[in-house]
């Protein structure tokens, strides 16, 4: 199979979804001729034309609400929000309108809409271009959330998100854009809501979200040398959440560490831990640990940024503390 970057796989995911439904269109800032600020929409204008690949003014509220109503009327819409931080200026539209229109209408409309965004702390993005905000959205009924961690996953999950009849947020950690992976050339669709067991193990379950899966794998390698066998799980989708895969793993290993780049209070790690204690408390041999970003705005200076973000060493230390 051919190897391509995650970034290239995002382009192919968009194209796969847009080929499947001719009513679909994508809007965003500099996504047409420029091909997106990360190059993630390159080629879309050429294939789908200016009617379906639309450059907008920097008006996030307007174009987010616009895509919601177009979706309610029967078009399939995609918003490229660029940095996830920018959803905050469209928050009324996302939370009060998009997430609720179907419900408030008593099911009269569907909401075939995707919001694609890049997030995460890396290389001094600073406080406005690094935030891991998905817990905010996970708290709102009516929003599906997908966090692909590999090139293969992002293509298939993004394509499925576009074809879903609900608002789906597909969020990509910036650190993933240049990783490579095997990706089929043909279009394919990965069902939302299915976790993946990235590495089998017997002694401890490490659940990693998005880029944290890669930190978890690195930690598992280090732990292996010390004789600890870690199982690494990538939920891939937060909403809906595949709790069965996590619970089964914890029942086997009896120990869990959750790695989530969101801040600890009300993070998605907190939610996963709550689920596990509700459904598998009797199987636990030790307290569950979570690794989150320390609670400060993401600092600019590299040593500060490194200090507050999760990393493999922090995961190793957490695992050792509960072994």
């Amino acid at each position, binding site marked *: 199979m051919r190897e391509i970057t995650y970034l290239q796989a995002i382009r192919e995911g968009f194209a796969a979804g847009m080929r499947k439904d001719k009513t679909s269109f994508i809007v965003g800032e500099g996504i047409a001729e420029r091909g997106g600020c990360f190059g993630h929409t390159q080629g879309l204008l050429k294939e789908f034309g200016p009617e379906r690949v639309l450059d907008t*003014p920097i008006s996030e*509220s307007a174009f987010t*609400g616009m895509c919601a109503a177009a979706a309610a009327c029967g078009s399939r819409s995609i918003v490229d929000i660029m940095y996830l931080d920018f959803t905050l200026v469209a928050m*009324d539209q996302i939370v009060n309108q998009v997430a609720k229109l179907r419900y408030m209408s008593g099911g009269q409309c569907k909401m075939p809409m995707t919001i694609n965004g890049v997030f995460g702390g890396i290389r001094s993005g600073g406080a406005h271009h690094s935030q891991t905000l998905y817990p905010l959205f996970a708290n709102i009924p009516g929003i599906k959330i997908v966090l692909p961690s590999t090139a293969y996953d992002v293509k298939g999950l993004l394509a499925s998100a576009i074809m879903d009849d609900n608002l789906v947020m597909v969020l990509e950690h910036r650190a993933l854009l240049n990783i490579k992976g095997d990706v089929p050339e043909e279009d394919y669709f990965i069902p939302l809501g299915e976790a993946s067991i990235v590495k089998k193990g017997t002694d401890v379950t490490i659940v990693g979200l998005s880029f944290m899966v890669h930190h978890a794998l690195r930690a598992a390698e280090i732990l292996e040398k010390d004789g600890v066998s870690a199982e690494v799980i990538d939920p891939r989708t937060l909403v809906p959440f595949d709790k069965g895969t996590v619970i089964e793993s914890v029942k086997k290993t009896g120990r869990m560490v959750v790695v989530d780049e969101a801040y600890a209070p009300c993070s998605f790690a907190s939610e996963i831990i709550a689920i596990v204690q509700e459904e598998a408390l009797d199987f636990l041999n030790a307290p569950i640990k979570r690794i989150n970003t320390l609670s400060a705005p993401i600092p600019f200076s590299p040593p500060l940024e490194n200090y507050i973000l999760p990393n493999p060493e922090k995961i190793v230390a957490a695992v050792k503390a509960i072994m």
Partner: protein
Amino acid sequence: MDNDKKIELLRLMFTILYFELCVQEYFTKGHIPGFAHIYVGEEATAVGVCAALNKDDYLVSTHRGHGHCIAKGGDINRLMAELYGKVTGYSSGRGGSMHIFALEIGVLGTSGIVGGGLPLSIGAGLHAKLRNTSQVSVCFFGDGASNQGTFHESINLAASWHLPVIFVCENNLYATATAFRDISLIKNIADRAKGYGIPGVAVDGNDVLKVYEAASEAVEMARNGKGPTLIECKTYRHYGHYIGEPGTGYRTQEEINEWIARDPVKLFSDYLVKNRIIDRNGILKIEKEVKDAVERAQTYAASCKFPEPNTALDNVFA
């Protein structure tokens, strides 16, 4: 406009008036839950604009939206049932007064967020444009919403993309309790259209024919791919911002009296009689029919079932 249509507009204005008075009565009695904002005094705006629309045109409304739904052709039984929170309501009791959707007649929702509907309205316009239909989208909003960022973002985007949208600002002079004259240096909100390179027109929002004329012109432009218009309808609500507002001391009694003297239903009734389109008895007959229909809607809504509690999670997702 032919005389039959004019009489039909009067009937719609009466329907809104008596519907709202009925809502006020049963809300005050505690039968209708939640909040309700009534449209009495502004009937000509909704009716004048909607008279220029087709059934499949889109409409985005506000928190004061019952009138828009009725003017667009909504069924007052289902509307009243929604206000009562009943399963037979337009949104099966999930929405209530501020979240009424009736997609079969293009109503994309009344709204609880001031200015929240402006982005939605351009989405309906974009949908129509991408599908190459001749549908248009009308966005009702108030003077309060004209100071929201969504006003600027949405009108600018619709203008630059030539979207088939008609922005109708119902300037009832007060954003809840704040007078527009106190929070803006401009007199006409319609003047802001210049900043977006689109036509802006201020009309007497209590004159249904003037509103209709302005709306028809804007709809014609929009249908022909010539983009949006901003119409400002100067009007007034006869009652408080919401039912039960503890006084409207921010408005003088003199001002209220002046506007009540220019009540749009009365003005239009007088016009029709004066021009011998209908006589006083004819009007009384319409009024009676409308009152009966509203009474039936109330009885119907009160008698309908509430949704089953265990259906509360239905339709969060498709």
